[in-house]
């Protein structure tokens, strides 16, 4: 029932979440998740000159995650390994999520690849993508005038 497809930040499916005043209403319908189950959950913030992604990924190691940017697609993939259960221990409750994932996002504008930053703190991965200078409006001086 739920499709998994490459996210576009301009994806019409997310239109209901685009306006600050309908935000609350969207979450009344679906308590803490968007209608499709995506792991890990990602929030995308769009600014005039920057795109910022925040991803909930507790307990992950640097070597288990890969962030790639290719043209205007950002891909986050990796694996969150489950804790080992030592011998003589029984698992009485298991709710935490683990496993491999791969998520791609179409960026709404070209970004400065060299200036993309990824930061992992307290289980949140934050990726900052500044807009490419070339696509920022520039005033061009006309020689000869």
């Amino acid at each position, binding site marked *: 029932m739920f499709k998994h497809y490459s996210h576009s*930040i301009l994806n019409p499916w997310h239109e209901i979440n*685009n306006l600050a005043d309908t935000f609350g209403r*969207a979450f009344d319908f679906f308590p803490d998740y*968007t209608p499709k189950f995506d792991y890990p959950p990602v929030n995308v913030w769009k600014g005039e000159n920057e795109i*910022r992604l925040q991803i909930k990924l507790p307990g992950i190691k640097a070597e288990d995650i890969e962030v790639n940017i290719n043209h205007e697609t950002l891909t986050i993939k990796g694996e969150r390994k489950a804790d080992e259960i030592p011998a003589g221990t029984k698992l009485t409750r298991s709710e935490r999520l683990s496993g491999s994932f791969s998520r791609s996002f179409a960026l709404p504008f070209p970004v400065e690849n060299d200036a993309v930053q990824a930061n992992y703190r307290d*289980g949140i991965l934050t990726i900052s993508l500044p807009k490419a200078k070339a696509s920022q409006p520039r005033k061009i001086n006309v020689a000869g005038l």
Partner: protein
Amino acid sequence: MNENQVTKKSDNTVVISPRVDITESEKEVLLVADMPGVGQSGVDVDLERNVLTIRGTRPAEVMEGFELTNAEFQPVYSYERQFTLGDTIDREKISASMKDGVLRLVLPKVAEAAPRRIVVTSE
């Protein structure tokens, strides 16, 4: 669903019940809770009688100049969950650690009371 039960409080803040794994061995119970975004200073572990409460808060970030265009989780939230502890847990020896948004609680069990023979004296 990525996280269990979300409650919206009257002030519109969101409290999430974190996902936990509980394992048990002969000597201890381990409780591990995923609370991404919460740092060591934001963790609260409370024990009152036999109710264990874990809480995680994080400072609300101000994303000025940004619009949330793809929302898969509430941007402002805190965590809370309660558990009832059995008598087998040695309350004095409970320890906790927090790293990368994962809270680990070690709840050692009381050493089994050695069998006792109660001597009955006459008055």
